[in-house]
């Protein structure tokens, strides 16, 4: 077992940056904050590449299987002798893969922000928050303990909250950040209870042990958790489903997706980092992390599958109707994550069946690049146009050639046109779906077509359509903004050729995949048709889109209103919880609980008032009472009391 302890520095560097910038940033590093953040992150990126090289090519593999390596681990909070929160670092294919993704994309975003956020009032704070997020995300992917996952999970959530609410004087931003946090918090509740269940029955919180105990069919824990049941559902299913709810919240799966579109209120680079590449895939990562356990429980897996598939479809449909480019991208993100989810869902443990798992991870990997590229491109566009709305755009290809090319590549990638990155990963997913569940395969295919359609709708209406309205062109921004686009574009082309299946598989063994042309024909042709349709509709300005929309009629409206999910939630909170639970309780507290106390006092006062007549001031009546007292005592103690 070789030494990976340097990996500790990969998350710690951003943490240090956060502390430094957070405490002294606004005083001392108002300008240099960006440079500091970027350099520190560059270091950890380099480190993670070193780690990846060491793991994948030097000593990760022991007789053909990639091992789980615990780089370091110490007890953070001990609940009871063997149940404790440990802070550890686990190294296995997915964690290393995530390391690469997070550090690399984050680095790109850091660089991009140098230009994008220049001159911001709270520049240092921005970088502090970015570093905080990077730290938490890295911590999350490296966690060796399920509670540790939860800890960083929360931290990720809060840093996303802070970044969405970065423009804190914009009420919409504040609302969006609040919404994001509360919705994910609600999901996290499920995660927490899931942890409690799994941890209790598994007798440990360590992921490795947990998996080992809950996957061996004769272990005591396994018997307990499968025999114990609540509402006729085994505790295992409960635990896994609850954990998945947590994941669904972070990964914006239906019905917990409502926060993602609003989250676009944050600065665009943030959206690129958090709400496209890294945080939103945390849910997928979580399921993948616990995949061996999930694979033991068909029910939980099927829930994952259908949630994923439905979200993918729903999001794709909605995306076709949105006009805010970031929202379109947001929904496409949701849709792609849906892809990953059901890919996991259809997977099984080991061998050929592990294809879905591998595919999902692969898609996660490629998606990170082209989606962040898309967002950064959109960022560049917004930077130029100062608007998120497609209607204000068009014909920008002349004004910003680099962005245009990069964006095009990204679109092709996400649409899954060979040989761009998206093609390979999507292909695997479709294949996996095809092998396990034809219906899911159908949905996936349709979604793929939709994806191509709305992405190119976006592309054409930004860069073609009408002639550019604005001419006060101050170029497409600094080199620091172009560079990341170029790099990411290269990746979007290149990463597809990574022999992913040799590195990341469900069981760590190599899984040889064969992309046969015959299978690819259907999706690719569909995609191309979709693209042509989009070109036909949006390449030049015309009224076909409107006619199409009216053709769809109510459905179009519903889709453009996001199928009223937001309204539903608003109804629940504003019309049910506040008036029917909150206010009554507040009222009860003020009037009944508190009232009783006051009533007690008043009653005492009243009684005091009532009996004041005894003190009549008439000495004779005093004497009478005196004698009465004696008489009463005499009666009591001579006759009654024995």
């Amino acid at each position, binding site marked *: 077992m070789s030494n990976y302890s340097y990996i500790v520095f990969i998350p710690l560097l951003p943490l240090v940056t956060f502390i430094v910038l957070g405490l002294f940033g606004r005083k001392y590093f108002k300008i240099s904050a960006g440079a500091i953040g970027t350099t520190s992150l560059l270091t950890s990126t380099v480190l993670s590449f070193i780690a990846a090289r060491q793991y994948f090519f030097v000593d990760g593999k022991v007789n053909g299987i990639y091992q789980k390596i615990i780089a370091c681990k110490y007890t953070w909070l001990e609940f009871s002798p063997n149940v404790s929160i440990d802070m550890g670092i686990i190294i296995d294919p997915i964690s290393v893969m995530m390391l690469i993704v997070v550090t690399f994309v984050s680095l790109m975003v850091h660089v991009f922000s140098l230009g994008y956020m220049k001159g911001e009032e709270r520049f240092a704070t921005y970088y502090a928050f970015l570093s905080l997020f990077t730290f938490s995300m890295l911590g999350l992917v490296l966690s060796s303990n399920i509670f540790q996952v939860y800890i960083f999970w929360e931290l990720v959530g809060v840093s996303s909250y802070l970044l969405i609410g970065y423009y804190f004087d914009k009420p919409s931003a504040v609302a969006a950040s609040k919404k994001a946090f509360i919705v994910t918090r609600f999901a996290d509740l499920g995660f927490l209870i899931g942890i409690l269940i799994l941890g209790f029955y598994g007798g440990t919180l360590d992921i490795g042990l947990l998996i080992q105990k809950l996957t061996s069919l004769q272990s005591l824990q396994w018997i307990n958790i499968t025999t114990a049941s609540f509402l006729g559902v085994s505790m295992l299913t409960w635990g896994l489903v609850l954990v998945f709810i947590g994941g669904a919240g972070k990964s914006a799966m239906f019905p917990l997706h409502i926060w993602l579109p609003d989250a676009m209120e944050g600065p665009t680079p943030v959206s690129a980092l958090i709400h496209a590449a890294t945080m939103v895939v945390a849910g997928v990562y979580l399921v993948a992390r616990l995949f061996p356990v999930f694979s033991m429980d068909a029910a939980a897996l099927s829930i994952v599958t259908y949630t994923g598939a439905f979200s993918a479809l729903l999001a794709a449909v909605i995306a076709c109707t949105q006009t805010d480019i970031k929202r379109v991208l947001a929904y496409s993100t949701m849709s792609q994550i849906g892809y990953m989810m059901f890919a996991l869902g259809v997977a099984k443990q080991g061998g050929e069946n592990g294809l879905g798992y591998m595919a999902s991870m692969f898609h996660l990997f490629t998606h990170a690049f082209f989606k962040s590229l898309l967002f950064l491109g959109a960022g560049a566009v917004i930077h130029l146009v100062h608007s998120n709305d497609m209607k204000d755009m068009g014909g920008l290809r002349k004004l910003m050639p680099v962005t245009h090319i990069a964006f095009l590549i990204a679109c092709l990638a996400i649409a899954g046109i060979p040989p761009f990155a998206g093609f390979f990963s999507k292909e695997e997913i479709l294949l996996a779906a095809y092998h396990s569940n034809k219906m899911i395969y159908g949905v996936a295919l349709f979604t793929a077509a939709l994806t191509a359609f709305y992405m190119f709708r976006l592309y054409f209406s930004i860069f073609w359509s009408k002639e550019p309205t604005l001419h006060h062109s101050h170029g497409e921004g600094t080199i620091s903004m172009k560079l990341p686009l170029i790099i990411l574009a290269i990746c979007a082309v290149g990463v597809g050729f990574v022999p992913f299946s040799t590195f990341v598989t469900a069981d760590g063994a190599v899984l040889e995949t064969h992309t046969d042309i015959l299978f690819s024909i259907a999706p690719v042709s569909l995609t191309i048709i979709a693209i042509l349709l989009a070109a036909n509709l949006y390449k030049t300005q015309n009224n076909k889109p409107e006619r199409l929309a009216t053709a769809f009629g109510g459905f179009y409206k519903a889709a453009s209103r996001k199928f009223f999910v937001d309204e539903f939630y608003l109804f629940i909170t504003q019309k049910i919880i506040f008036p029917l639970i909150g206010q009554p309780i507040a009222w009860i507290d003020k009037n009944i609980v508190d009232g009783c106390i006051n009533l007690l006092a008043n009653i005492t006062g009243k009684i005091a008032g009532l*009996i004041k007549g005894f003190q009549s*001031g008439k*000495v004779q009546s*005093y004497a009478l009472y005196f004698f009465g007292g004696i008489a009463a005592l005499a009666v009591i103690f001579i006759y009654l009391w024995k």
Partner: protein
Amino acid sequence: MILTDFFILLRQELLITAIIFGLLIVKLGKDRSNESILMLINLLLLLNLAAGFFCSTEGALFSDMFRTNKLIVLEKNILNLAIWIISLQSYSWLKTHKHVIEFYILLLSALLGMFFMISSGNLLMFYLGLEMSTIPLAAAANFDLSKRQSSEAAMKLIISSAFSSGLLLLGISLVYGTTGTLTLSELSSQMGHNPLQVFAFILLISGFAFKISAVPFHLWTADVYEGAPIAVTAFLSVVSKAAVLFVFVSILYTTFKSLAELWYNLLFLLALLTIIIGNLFALRQDNFKRFLAFSSIAQVGFILIGISGSSQAGTASVVYFILIYVFSNLAAFGVVSLVSAVTGKEKISDYKSFYTTNPMLAWVLTIALFSLAGVPPTAGFFGKFFLLMAGSANGSYWPITIAALNMVISFYYYLRVVKAIFMDANDKPVQKLVVPALPKLALYICVAGIIVTGLWSSVYDYIYSLSPGF
């Protein structure tokens, strides 16, 4: 040697008598300024108090008519202390008064009566002491001759006390009739549970209850306290109550031991009634003296609970509490008397924002009230705690609970005064008072007592060591 016995055992009574005669002589002689007289008197009282602490022995005189022991001497000393403090406090009231000496003669003769009552070994002696301690007080209550209220108070006191003594006498006569003896030591063997004796016993109890103003025999208290001059009120509420309680404890524990089961319940009944009624009435008072009257009634209720403990701790805690009660109550009365002597204000509402003008007096009053309420670290806390502890020794917890919860009500009205003093706004508060030396001394003594008596445990240990078991 009978004569030395006579002088040693009776020395406290003799001292008081000497002072009374001395005062008479002074009165007959050429008239002096009030200040000098008051100085003299206070000095004498201090000497009297000091003398009490020397050569205290046990013994009996006049064929067990009069008996004394260390505890009784201590009790008498407590009374001496109380009357000294009272006289110090009433300085500013008396120095303008025409009949200083008469006032002292009345109080001292009452005190003398109490002394005899405390050491009485015979119902006759007890009766004599009781009357001797009551009748002068009735006269003293009327000491503000010009005030309507004063004479009304005196009238109420004398009539109701005469009535109660009538009933008491009936009781005694029945006891005599059923047992044929009046000597307490002999009675203890003869009292039984036959109805006539129980009735007689209840009559006796009612006599005591009247004196210590336990409900329902308390109705005279508030009126008399309000009407009488503050000094007399203080005397009534502290000294005469204390004296009767001392006797009450010893008589219950020794003479009526055979009826213990009966009076245990009877006491709890009276105690709860007293606490509750006292509190309820205290809630709605605005006259400070009347307020203190009812609060003192409530206090008596707690004392009764302590007595019902019927144990060495019971006696000790009662005596201990009375000592504390002397300090706390007199501190309160001291401030009140100062204020009313100068401004004539006796209402609680007059004390609004008292703190802004007289911080020192305000603190004294607050500490006194807290001690009455039983807040640590004042001695009152210890006193109440030990009383209830003694009371709960026999395991009757519900009465204890009721008593404890009643402390909450009592808190309310004590804190109401504190609130007035510190928090309520007042456009014309009591003006800044200049406190003469003697009253100030009295206040200091009281506060010191309130602090020390509680925290310094040897006080309690001493009392405990003196007090007899059950």
